[in-house]
C-alpha cells in the first residue's frame, strides 16, 4: 500500500471519526460515521481484504447504518440544545480517552515489521479463500452466528414491540411520533 494512500485514508478516517464525537446533530454524526466506515473499508481493500472490504461497505454502511438512520428518524432526535454534562466531566473524559490513545501509541511504537513483509498467496482475501476458511476452520462459529442473529431478531422484536394493551391501561406510554 502506498504511503500516500494510507495517509490520505488515515486522515479521512480520523477526521470523520472525530466528527462522530464532536458534532451535535445526530444525523451529522451518523454521516460522519458512514464516511469513517467507508474509509476503513477502503483500507481493507488496500490491505488485500477484498471481500471484507466490500462487505464493510455493503453490510455496515448499507444495512447497519440505515438502521441507525431509521431510529434517529423514528425517535425524531434533534440537535442537542445545550451541551450537557459538566465541563469537568468532559475534561477528565477527554484526558482519559487521550490517555488511552497515548498508551496505545507507545505500545505500537514498540512493534515493528513492514506490512508487506509477507508475500501473500494469490487469492488472498478473495471470496474463495474466505469461504474456505469460514466453512472449514470456522464452521462452528459460522453456524453459531446464525443463532446469534436469531437471538438478535427475537430480542429486538421482543423489546421494541409496542406494548401490550393492558399495560397501556396501567401506565400509558406516550405516543411515539411516527
Amino acid at each position: 500500500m502506498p504511503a500516500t494512500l494510507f495517509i490520505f485514508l488515515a486522515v479521512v478516517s480520523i477526521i470523520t471519526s472525530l466528527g462522530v464525537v464532536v458534532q451535535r446533530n445526530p444525523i451529522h454524526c451518523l454521516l460522519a460515521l458512514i464516511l469513517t466506515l467507508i474509509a476503513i473499508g477502503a483500507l481493507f481493500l488496500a490491505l488485500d481484504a477484498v471481500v471484507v472490504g466490500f462487505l464493510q461497505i455493503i453490510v455496515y454502511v448499507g444495512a447497519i447504518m440505515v438502521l441507525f438512520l431509521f431510529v434517529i428518524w423514528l425517535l425524531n432526535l434533534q440537535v442537542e440544545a445545550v451541551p450537557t454534562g459538566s465541563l469537568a466531566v468532559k475534561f477528565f473524559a477527554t484526558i482519559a480517552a487521550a490517555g488511552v490513545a497515548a498508551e496505545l501509541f507507545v505500545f505500537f511504537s514498540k512493534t515493528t515489521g513492514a506490512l508487506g513483509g509477507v508475500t501473500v498467496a494469490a487469492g488472498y482475501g478473495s471470496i474463495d479463500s474466505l469461504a474456505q476458511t469460514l466453512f472449514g476452520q470456522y464452521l462452528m462459529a459460522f453456524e453459531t452466528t446464525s443463532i446469534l442473529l436469531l437471538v438478535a431478531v427475537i430480542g429486538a422484536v421482543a423489546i421494541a414491540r409496542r406494548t401490550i394493551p393492558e399495560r397501556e391501561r396501567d401506565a400509558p406510554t406516550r405516543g411515539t411520533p411516527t
Partner: protein
Amino acid sequence: MTPFNLKAIDFQWLPILPLITIALAAIVVLLVGVRVDDEESEGLGWLAAASIAIAFVLTLAMSGQNTSAFSGSIAIDDFAVFFELAILFVAAFVVLMSLSYATETRLPGAEYYSLILFAALGMMLMAAAGDLIIIFIGLETMSIAIYVLAGLKRSDPRSNEAAIKYFLLGAFSTGFLLYGIALVYGATGTIKLEPIRNALAHGIGLGSPLLLLGVGMMLIGFGFKIAAVPFHMWTPDAYEGAPTPITAYMATGVKLAAFAGFLRVFPLHLSAISADWTWVLWIMAALTMTVGNVVALVQTNIKRMLAYSAIAHAGYLLVAMAAAVPEAGAAMLFYLVGYVVANLGAFGVVIALERRGISNDMIEDYRGLAQREPALAAAMTIFLLSFTGVPPLVGFVGKFYIFSGALQGGLIWLVVIAVLNSVMAAYYYIYVIVAMYMQEGGVAVRSMTLRPGLVATIAIALIATILIGVYPSPYMNAASTAFNSALGLGPIHAASLLP
C-alpha cells in the same frame, strides 16, 4: 479456484447435540409460545425445563472424553461438561423460579423462555469453546439474550434502564475484548486456543508487546463480564432493574459462563505467561473483594446487596485465579458451584417474597420474616450463611478450597485480605438475618403464590447447599477432574499436584 473439500470439515454431531437440543427447544418454545397468552406461559416453562433436562442427560453422556471437534473450535473435555452441566442446572432453575414470576408479572412468555434457552446456549458455547472466536460469539449470544431479558419488563423504566446500561457497557467492553483477541492473534498468528498454547510453549510471541497488550485487553473484557472492579459499575443497576429471575440468571449463569471462558483462556491456555497476568489479577481481586463488600455493607435493597455480594464473590474467585496453580483452578470450579447454588436459592426466596407487580426487596421489608414465613426465612438464612462462609455449608468449603489454592500459590497477603473481607461480608449478610429474626415490622405482604417450581428451586438449592457442604468430596473430585482434563491431565488427587 480450489474445490471445496467437504471431507476436510471436522463436523461432529455428537458434541453439539446438547447445543442443538437447546437451540431447537428455544425455537419450539418461541413458535408454540406466540399462541400462548402471557399469563398462561407456565406450560412453556415446563417445556423449556424438559428440554434442558434432555440436554443435561446428553451432556452428561459426553463426560470422560478429552478431544475436540470442529477443527478445535469446540473442546470436548470434562471442563466443558462440568460447566455445561452447571449452566444447564442454572438455566433449569431459572426457568423453574420464573414459572410463577413470569405469569404474575406478565412477561412475554414465548420470548422470555426462548431467550433464557438461547442465553444458556451462548453460555455453553463459552464453556466448550476451543477458540477465541467461539468464546466471543458465545459471549455475544448470551449477552444479547440477557440484555433483552433484563429489559423485558418493558413498561418498567427500571428494567429499561437496566437493559440499556448493561447493553452500552457490554458493547463497550466487547470492543476491548475484541481488541485483545486481535492483538493476541497478531502476536501468535492464531485464535485457536490449543495452538496459542503451543505457540507460547515454543516461544512464539513471547515478549511481544502485542501479546501483552492483548492479554491486558482480554483481562478487561473478561473483567467486565465477571464484574471485577473497576469494571463492575453496571452490576448493581442491572441486577436491580432486571426481572428477579433474570437477576438470578445474571448472578449465576453469566458468571459461570464468564468464568468458564476466563479460565479456559487464561489459566488453561495462557499459563506460559502467567507471570504477566497474575499481578493484575492480584490487584483486581483485592479491589473487587474490598469494593464489593464495602459497598454491599451500606445497601438497603436486597437485590443490590446481592449484586455487590456477587462482585465480592468474583473477587474471591479471582484470588484463586491469581494463585495460578492447578489446585486453585479446581477450587474455583468448586466455589462456583457453591456460589451458584446458594445464589439461586437466595434469589428464589427474593422472588417468593415479591408481591404481584410491586417489588418487596428492601432489606427492611424482611423484618419479622421469621415470624411470618419461618421456612423461607430459615432457607434464606442458610443461603446467607453459606455466602458468609459458615461451615458446614458449601460456601465455607468453597472458601476453604479457594484459600488453600491461593496459599498453595503463595498468595498469603491476598488471602489475608480475603479473610478480612469475609468478616466484612459477614456483617451485611448477618444484617439481613437480623432483620428477619430479630426485628419487628416489615411489610406483611401477600407473597407470591408458592408454585411447585419455586418451592423446588429453593428446596433443592437448600439441600445442595447443606449436602455439598457436608460431603464435598465427590464435587471436589469432579472439579479437579474437570479442571485437569482441560489441562490435558487425567483425574488427579489434589495431593499429587503439590510440589
